[in-house]
């Protein structure tokens, strides 16, 4: 469990990135921080592994105040996946994945064997192990990034817009993969994105942020969609207009769902649990 207690962050230049932020991120669940630029979401994420230290307040991991922990040791037990993969260009794929175990003193040979298994886990062919990052596609690089994040078998995985720089088709693939991985591995995932669709798809708990890290609403995707806390949230998730405001239209062949523009958006089918539409 990660707990933020009255956390604020003021940067030396005077910008207030986060003000009095409190939140509990439950273990083994995916918490998605979603907001536009300037909402402080990345700052919040980077405070968990002490890449950024809060100006006031504290962050606890399983009841332990992170400010009492040594930053390097803390980072090595937290997985970190970032945009543009952040891979080391002069390390082969296999050595990128093995980076953290090697830093932790695992013998290189053993670390590489583990890394090969991780390539399987993230759905990469083992033949890519000896390539360099520049020889991979964007999607493959992101997968390597995820494998590296998982290499030290951390309980916590931080993901900073990991799929932001890949094309929509690859992004969709990677999102599905992440859901599968999360089902298998059961990590505490903190995911940052500006894409509300991605947030609803991946998040058990979604945190919608306004400027300055103010929490507009926290809840499951269902809770947020069914009861937006205010106009900002309603607007952000597109509940009032656009593709999420769907209405039923009867047609001679059955009922379809249309958006506010009257464009067909889908059909009504019985729910997965067998309940009627």
């Amino acid at each position, binding site marked *: 469990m990660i707990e933020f207690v009255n956390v604020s962050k003021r940067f030396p230049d005077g910008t207030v990135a986060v003000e009095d932020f409190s939140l509990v991120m439950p273990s083994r669940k995916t918490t998605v921080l979603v907001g536009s630029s300037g909402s402080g979401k990345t700052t919040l994420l980077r405070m968990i592994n002490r*890449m950024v230290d809060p100006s006031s307040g504290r962050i606890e991991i399983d009841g332990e105040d992170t400010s009492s922990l040594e930053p390097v040791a803390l980072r090595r037990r937290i997985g*970190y996946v970032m945009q543009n993969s952040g891979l080391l260009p002069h390390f082969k794929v296999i050595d990128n994945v093995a*980076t953290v175990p090697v830093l932790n003193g695992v013998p290189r040979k053993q670390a590489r064997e583990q890394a090969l298994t991780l390539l399987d886990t993230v759905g990469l062919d083992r033949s890519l192990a000896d*390539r360099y990052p*520049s020889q991979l596609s964007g999607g493959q690089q992101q997968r390597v990034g995820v494998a*590296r994040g998982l290499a030290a078998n951390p309980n916590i995985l931080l993901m900073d817009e990991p799929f932001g720089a890949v094309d929509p088709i690859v992004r969709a693939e990677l999102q599905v993969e992440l859901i599968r991985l999360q089902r298998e591995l059961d990590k505490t995932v903190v995911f940052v994105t500006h894409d509300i669709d991605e947030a609803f798809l991946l998040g058990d708990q979604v945190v919608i942020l306004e400027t300055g890290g103010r929490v507009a609403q926290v809840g499951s995707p269902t809770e947020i969609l069914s009861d937006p806390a205010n106009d900002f949230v309603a607007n952000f998730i597109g509940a009032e207009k656009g593709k999420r405001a769907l209405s039923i239209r009867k047609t001679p062949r059955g009922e379809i769902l249309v958006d506010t523009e009257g464009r067909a958006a889908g059909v009504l089918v019985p729910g997965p649990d067998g309940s009627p539409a």
Partner: protein
Amino acid sequence: MNFFVEAIAWILDPRHYGGENGIDTRIVEHLVISFGVVLVAALIAVPLGYAIGHTGRGRAAAIALSGGIRALPTLGLLILIALGVGIGLTAPFIALVVLAIPSILAGAYSGFEAVDRRTIDAARSVGMTEWQVVGRVEVPLGLPLLIGGLRAASLQVIATATLADYVGGGGLGHFLFLGLKTNDYPQVLAGSFVVILLAIVSEILFGVIQRLVIPAGVSAGMSTNVRVRSPRSQAATG
């Protein structure tokens, strides 16, 4: 009277080899001085440049200082130091070290600065200590630019080390100063040719080294035939 031909003849004359004033002896002396100077300058400038490049602090001061040092006339500096420490190799050695430092310093810090900030941020995020960020990321990725700095410094030092003999420091400058004093212009020209030759050899060597030190993954990204390379040949190079 063709100085050019005479100079070549002077170089080829077997009587000018062997002994204290032989061309071969003077070449070795010149190279030892140059190598020693670049080594000492590197020992000073590389750690300093790395510190500047890693922390991002002191860059403005380093540029100002480098500019100032570059503007110093080496001959003037040499005489100034020689007035203090006397005749011999010490004065030219110090003057040449001062000459070599700016290029190496610039190569060291610009090498670090050229590393993508996101790569460094990523290295830190996964739990590298500052020393590991330096040793495993910044040094290997910054190496080509550092070698470039050493290359420029070596060229300058080899050319300018001719001044060493002005205060009795030895090296190929001996032929120049002796030739000037005795109006023996073929000898002056011959000495110059040898210096030029050394400079060219140095350039070629550093050119090769510079290509060799480009980290594998980085050169792999730059080469155009990446996609046709088979995994087998990549495994072989690794």
